[in-house]
């Protein structure tokens, strides 16, 4: 019998281990690394009949929002090659947008699937934390990372999710609960659903055209019988600060294993073991990775732990509680994915903080562990895609996908094809 993805060519982000080809994480430190094993999701895709035709570019170790932080290439936006594809799953989203593959996998730690999906005009899902096994996903922020599907429409995203979701004994944080038949439930009607709108997502810094497109999407659903409910997420404003402590703390520890001792890049002539560590890491990691390792190391240092890491964990609980309270009253929360459409190549690369702020609307979903999807909802005056974010409660993918699908049945933004037939990469 043929699997549900029989013969479907797919691409996967290059931070998922594969026994074929390289697994570089976009980093020089893993330039020569070949994995001994396949990630759980690769096993699942292949046993469903998919043909993984390649690995896609990313910001080094998934740290970035533009795929400019790759040690190898900058991935450009198929809609406008002077613009970034977004990141860190920029390669996967650009590949889907440029019709190189019908579907791809990305990973999302603070928006790394949804933000590039919005920039590239494709659909990207960040599943609930624990829905998809992380076994074989090279960790960035272990308590935030999730693998998710990227495709041109919600149906394909649901199909791929049904293949990769489910418990895996090799990942203790993957949750053992049944995987619903996502495809079978896509036809649930919009009528009667409650859509939460939080002013925190529509404040200062939001581009006017993005706001209007998202508002139009909400109006459309309201016109179909959805109830729009104002909600309040009071702690969302601490999301960025909280995220950059939790994620960097975990990253500083997760990336400690790249030391030049057992595999990966090793400095040519180390003078002693300390030099081996320092030079291998110094030469192997790029500037953004080093910045985050230093931030995280600092946050975990004795004397600072309580003030930074511990406090961040407390704020994280508050953010989680905010969402739980909200989901008692609404089925989904609608918001923009990003404050702006795709920015220019090089525009933010010298300003890390500006770059971090491009994830302001996506980060909270990772902190709360809930599911969230980005679907195309329009174009700005420059012809760049705009994304609508819909967020659902933890393990609420079934409902979330159905609502997104119903939106797509009534719109054709996702059917638009970029003027360039294919993605362009440049060294």
């Amino acid at each position, binding site marked *: 019998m043929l699997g549900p993805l029989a013969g479907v060519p797919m691409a996967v982000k290059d931070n998922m281990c594969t026994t074929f080809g390289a*697994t570089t994480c976009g980093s020089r430190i893993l330039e020569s690394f070949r994995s001994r*094993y396949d990630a759980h999701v690769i096993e699942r895709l292949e046993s469903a009949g998919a043909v993984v035709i390649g690995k896609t570019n990313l910001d080094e170790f998934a740290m970035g929002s533009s795929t400019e932080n790759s040690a190898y290439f900058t991935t450009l936006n198929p809609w406008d090659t002077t613009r970034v594809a977004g990141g860190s799953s920029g390669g996967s989203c650009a590949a889907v947008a440029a019709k190189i593959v019908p579907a791809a996998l990305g990973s999302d730690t603070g928006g790394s699937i949804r933000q590039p999906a919005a920039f590239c005009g494709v659909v990207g899902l960040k599943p609930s934390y624990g829905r998809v096994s992380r076994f074989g996903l090279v960790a960035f922020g*272990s308590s935030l990372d999730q693998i998710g599907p990227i495709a041109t429409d919600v149906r394909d995203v649901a199909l791929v999710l049904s293949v990769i979701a489910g418990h895996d004994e090799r990942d203790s944080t993957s949750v053992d609960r049944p995987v619903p038949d996502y495809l079978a439930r896509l036809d649930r009607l919009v009528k009667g659903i409650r859509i939460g709108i939080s002013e925190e997502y529509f404040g200062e810094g939001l581009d006017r055209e993005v706001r209007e497109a998202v508002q139009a999407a909400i109006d459309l659903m309201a016109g179909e019988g959805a109830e729009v409910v104002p909600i309040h997420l009071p702690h969302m404003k601490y999301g960025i600060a909280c995220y950059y402590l939790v994620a960097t703390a975990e990253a500083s520890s997760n990336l*400690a294993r790249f030391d030049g001792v057992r595999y990966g890049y090793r400095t040519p002539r180390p003078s002693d073991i300390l030099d081996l560590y320092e030079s291998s890491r110094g030469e192997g990691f790029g500037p953004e990775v080093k910045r985050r390792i230093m931030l995280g190391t600092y946050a*975990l240092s004795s004397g600072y*732990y309580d003030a930074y890491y511990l406090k961040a964990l407390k704020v994280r609980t508050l953010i989680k509680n905010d969402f739980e309270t909200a989901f008692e009253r609404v089925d989904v929360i609608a918001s923009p994915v990003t404050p702006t459409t795709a920015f220019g190549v090089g525009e933010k690369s010298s300003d890390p903080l500006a770059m971090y702020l491009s994830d302001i609307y996506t980060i909270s979903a990772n902190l709360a562990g809930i599911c969230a999807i980005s679907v195309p909802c329009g174009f700005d005056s420059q012809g760049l895609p705009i994304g609508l974010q819909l967020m659902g409660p933890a393990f609420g993918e079934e409902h979330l996908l159905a609502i997104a699908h119903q939106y797509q049945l009534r719109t054709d933004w996702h059917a638009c094809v970029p003027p360039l037939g294919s993605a362009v990469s440049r060294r």
Partner: protein
Amino acid sequence: MSDQTLTTRTIVGLEIHVQLQTKTKMFCGCPVRFEAPPNSCVCPVCLGHPGALPVMNGQAYRWAVLTGMALNCAIARHTKWDRKSYFYPDLPKNYQISQYDLPLASDGYFEVQVGAGTKRVRIRRAHLEEDAGKNLHDTGNCTLVDLNRAGAPLLEIVTEPDIESAEEAYVFCIELQRLVTHLGVSEGVMQKGQMRFEPNVNVAIESQGREYRTPIVEIKNLNSFRAVRQAIEYEAQRQTAAWRENADYQLGTVPNENRGWNADKGVTEFQRGKEAAHDYRYFPDPDLVPVEVSDVMLEEIRAMLPELPIARRRRFAEQYGLSVKDAETLVEHRATAELFERVVAGGAPAEVVGKQLVNVWLKLANDRGVAVTDLGVDETRMAELAKIAADGTVNKTAANQIAEIMLSRGESPRQLAEELGLVQVQDMDSTRRWVEEAFTANENAVRDALQNPKKMQAAVGFLRGQAMKGSGGKADPKLLGELIEERLARLRTGS
């Protein structure tokens, strides 16, 4: 300081690492094998490969809880795993998964026999962690890393500083080894590094009505009981001497330090000061879920808890009238102790069973390098041998002989005794004849037995042996002894 009247008291707290003998490692499915070729028991998880994730070994956790219970600890109902960060080539992830602020067991105590008394040492905590690999430095100008041990489950037990001498520490460590082997959670073999000790030592010095304390020294990585005793003894003397030389050598004034034990020189050597201690940047491991211990799980583990060695030793001595030494030998291994009780339950007299186990069966097992339970001798047969020895059917020498034959033959000891002609002969005439033959054949020994006070005892023993030999091992030793004395007495009086 020339004060001669000072008194000193050694203060010791112990950190003990016990490797648990689970089939697989703490967080992956690799076997824990000591003698395997380097890097043959490894996988992406214990190699720290990208993307690999740890999964807790439930057996290791249950055994750790069992040990915690045996140490009278409070068992935590909720614990978690933490990462302890430091860079070292034998640590693949450059962090160790351990338990920081929520150890699985805490606030217990362990009692050991010191001299005639009982010493209670409080247990501060016990927690699980993964072992590191091994750096092999003796390979020319490079260092090789063997990661077979990396990820092996380690139970770290920390005592309060209640131990007051090197001897107490020595006894504590031995008793703890007995405990873990008794529980079956560890082989406890020092040579394989399955138990490692790190004593924290300082000295309280009382001089002219004032008490001074020396800085605390942690002696790293001792792997024998002897080394524990010697290193603490040495360290106590060294610290006292250092204080005599310089009264500023005090806790709080001079920093604490780590020292290593040089067994060849019999000294401790400075390793590093504690002020340069690592910042391990502990934080909860996001790859592992917290551990919740249910009532059911606690009950199940508690049901596995056997009688502990110290209690069992006391009971054996009291209930069965065994000597302290024999009781100790029998309890050394749980299997032997349990075998003893089963054989006794088979109706054999406890004292004889005890003696035969200690003096015969354990010796035979040791000679063959097997456990006494693996000698291949049926327990009911062991009981029969004890019975025929107790009721005088065979004497001790014959019983020993029969035991050895029982290793290869399945007949009952009584049958064997009859077949080999070892049934004890009580007959007065035959016994007298064997004595006479021994006397006639060994005139020198007879002379010594009568006239040479220095050799008298040895000579009598020799004659008894010769007579027993003449009987083919069948003589009743008691009767034989009586007849030899009788004959010597007659010779003395010249009758």
